[in-house]
């Protein structure tokens, strides 16, 4: 059901774990709907120098977390903010249609972590552009 790229990121997740001294964290989803994703950011001079994740979810959720963290590492916050779930799914060479919502979680948790950093540093939280598919289970 998953392609080899997805399976590779699922089985060998990049950047999995915790950053003890993270300066931005974001958690989305809830146990009720099943998926929870937590992102830890280490930001220096507006650049993401390190990123880690924890995920409670399916193969697609884990693979999306892994891919998304790879894609934002070394990027500026603005660049990371622009990473869409579609880009993550594309980088994974496609997800099954009923699993696209799992990649939304990656996008949303990164947004949450970025805004956490911004608010902690006295900056205004960025607004979601909207138009995302409702995440539903």
């Amino acid at each position, binding site marked *: 059901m998953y392609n080899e790229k997805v399976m590779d990121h699922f089985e060998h997740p990049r950047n999995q774990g915790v950053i003890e001294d993270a300066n931005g964290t974001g958690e989305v989803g809830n146990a*009720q*709907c099943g998926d929870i994703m937590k992102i830890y950011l280490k930001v220096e001079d507006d650049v993401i120098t390190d990123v880690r994740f924890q995920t409670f979810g399916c193969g697609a959720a884990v693979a999306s977390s892994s891919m998304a963290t790879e894609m934002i590492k070394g990027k500026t916050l603005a660049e990371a903010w622009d990473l869409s779930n579609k880009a993550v799914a594309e980088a994974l060479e496609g997800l099954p249609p009923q699993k696209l919502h799992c990649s939304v979680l990656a996008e949303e948790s990164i947004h949450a972590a970025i805004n956490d950093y911004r608010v902690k540093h006295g900056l205004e939280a960025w607004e979601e552009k909207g138009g995302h598919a409702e995440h539903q289970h």
Partner: protein
Amino acid sequence: MDHAATTATRVEVAEAMVPYMTGHFGNPSSLYDLAKDSREAVDAARVQVAAAIGAAPKEIYFTSGGTESDNWALKGVAFAKRSKGNHIITTAVEHHAISHTCAWLEKQGFSVTYLPVDRYGMVDPEAVEAAITPETILISVMMANNEIGTIMPIAEIGTVARKHGVLFHTDAVQAAGHIPIDVQEMNIDLLSLSGHKFHGPKGTGALYVGPGVRLDPLMHGGAQERGRRAGTENVPGIVGMGMALSLAVAEMVENAERVTALRDRLAAGLLAIPETYLNGHPQKRLPNNVNVVFAYIEGESILLLLNRKGIAASTGSACSSASLEASHVLMACGLPHDVVHGSLRLTLGEETTEADVDYVVAAVAGVVQRLRDMSPLTPTELRSK
């Protein structure tokens, strides 16, 4: 270890089927000699299936599987008895072949009671009795649950049904070949079977229809199966199903003993993993079924990692279902949505060995730990150092 989903056709069964595909190709309901062998083979299979459940051969109707048998029993009785009443009693833990059929019948104006179950997935025969109204035309309760293995009190429910003169159907798809069945003693009026659950061919099934039970056909057409189930008979499939069931029943006692011991070894091994809980009834369960939940992790990921280790399994997690709905069976047993996510079903086969069980226990323990390390929910003391 997913033998509740499907089993391979026994080699001797497949071999017995081939001549009926390519050689004896007569149509058993027509006249000529070519058909005679086919007809005799179908009759012999009918005797085998009947014997396996204590029925008479003429009470067995061959179908295309458990799903058709379930659909036929419910819709057949519902439409035939519409003038008598419109109420059906079933449980909250039936297979979708029952529950989705009931939902459709509700759209056609029937009223359905879905009885709750206790934490072990067991329905109370007294609750069945209490649900009966003058409008009740059918009670349908599965013999053994496909997810958690719980064996229902079928004989007791049969007694209740008979006492009130209500027809009683049971979906015995998971039970047949694993536990003893006697339609007479259990007062069963209709019973569904599926061939591929006991090493018979896929796409074969049967419905037992007791004496005097009226039901509309689900398959209208030719006069096959004494005018009750139309369609050219799947002769090789019927031959294979009959043979597989009679072999399964002959070997049942011996297999059940050995498999039960392995099941208990497997369960004990898995329950040794911290924060792991058994689903289904501790004693009254199928000899081959183990179902557990692991806190803090999600089932689809468990399956994927086990799969990489060559282990097939099943889960009630919403993430792994096409509809993204968590198992209605585990929810009916009172498990919260997020706990259902972490469920794992393993079902043993006759050929499973102790070594297999030990391998699986070790593999699952590793996978659970790996996923717990990844999960934001896992408490610190359960994480790897």
